[in-house]
């Protein structure tokens, strides 16, 4: 549900973060028939910071490859195009988030940890539920709260009001945002994702991660991000301002078709991967 006001805000911010150009170029390249692995890896190498981070991630325990992956071409071959695309996106977002100046009340480091935690939990859920595209779910999880960054950075005063309101009333951030701003971070975040031309699926994962109302189509990907977010709050992986664990939507749980006993496995594995990821994507 897009409101004119969100569009106005998104469009009026001159210094709205742009995704590093590399992701756009890569997306475009992957859609053309002439791309080769060499061309793709060369393009990623044009941004050495991102290339270096992709290699670090690929060689980390999170991926569990036995042999060291020495160069980008090798990484592209082994991981496949969709995974590489999502990795480049994740590192691009990391770059963007790092450059944000935030209001005092909003802890950027904790926000980033929470985003990573949700990305990982959602992904592990997706893998356990045999979804066909866990890398996309990872991205959706990573970006689910990006709207809060926009609010914190560009609507500073009102956002501080939201934070105060939450502390006083113990409500969820969305409720306070809707009261004070007129829209919530799910709407802002999905509007930003659209501006970044991200795939519709990812836009939807961001827009509907609370499931405060049923979307036209409740996909398993949306369900995974919804529950992934809840798990990472329960596991206290960072914080993005929510005081309480949100309640799991019944339909979301059912659509994933998991057993209750799968939850412990998912949470343990997510915790493990979370610790490993932090050592790579640390904020100083």
């Amino acid at each position, binding site marked *: 549900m897009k409101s004119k006001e969100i569009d106005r805000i998104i469009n009026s911010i001159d210094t709205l973060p742009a995704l590093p150009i590399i992701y756009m170029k890569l997306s475009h390249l992957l859609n053309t028939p002439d791309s080769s692995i060499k061309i793709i890896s060369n393009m990623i190498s044009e941004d050495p910071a991102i290339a270096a981070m992709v290699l670090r991630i690929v060689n980390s325990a999170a991926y569990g490859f036995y042999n060291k992956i020495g160069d980008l071409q090798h990484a592209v071959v082994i991981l496949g195009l969709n995974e590489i695309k999502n990795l480049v996106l994740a590192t691009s977002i990391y770059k963007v988030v790092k450059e944000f100046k935030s209001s005092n009340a909003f802890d950027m480091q904790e926000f980033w940890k929470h985003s990573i935690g949700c990305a990982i939990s959602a992904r592990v859920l997706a893998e356990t539920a045999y979804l066909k595209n866990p890398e996309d779910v990872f991205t959706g999880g990573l970006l689910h709260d990006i709207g809060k960054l926009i609010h914190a950075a560009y609507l500073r005063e009102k956002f501080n009001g939201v934070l105060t309101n939450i502390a006083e009333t113990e409500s969820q951030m969305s409720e306070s945002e809707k009261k004070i701003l007129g829209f919530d971070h799910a709407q802002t975040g999905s509007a930003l994702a659209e501006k970044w031309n991200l795939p519709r699926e990812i836009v939807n994962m961001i827009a509907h991660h609370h499931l405060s109302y049923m979307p036209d189509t409740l996909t398993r990907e949306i369900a995974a991000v919804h529950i992934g977010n809840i798990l990472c709050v329960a596991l206290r992986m960072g914080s993005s301002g929510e005081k309480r*664990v949100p*309640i799991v939507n019944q339909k979301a749980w059912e659509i994933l078709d998991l057993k209750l006993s799968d*939850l412990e496995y998912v949470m343990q594995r997510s*915790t493990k991967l979370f610790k490993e990821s932090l050592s790579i994507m640390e904020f100083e």
Partner: protein
Amino acid sequence: MGILNISDLKPGMVLAQSAKNRHGVVIIGKGNVLTEKHIHSFKTWGITGVDIKNIDVDQVTKQEMEALPNDIIESIERELDELFPPFEDNPVMEEIYKIVQRASLRQAANQTTGVADEIERD
């Protein structure tokens, strides 16, 4: 009987129900005594929990709780109370709550004995 998570399994435990993979294929039959090899193969087959004879999972938690001083248990309970909203008739939330509770208790228990983090046990 109780469904135990893979990481809680120990050789010598007896299966109360056969362990099946996602497609309903029996990997190891009911009544079998588990060996290290069995436990390892569960991971390969993607099995996350199995039904063990004579284990009550809530009992396991109670035993862990008994080993801890009261003030620590109370502070964990308080933290969980603040973190989780009230919920009723919600098996999923209950399960998440129990998992976090168990992990917190274990972590507290290990801190008193100085062992590494309990949350990851692989």
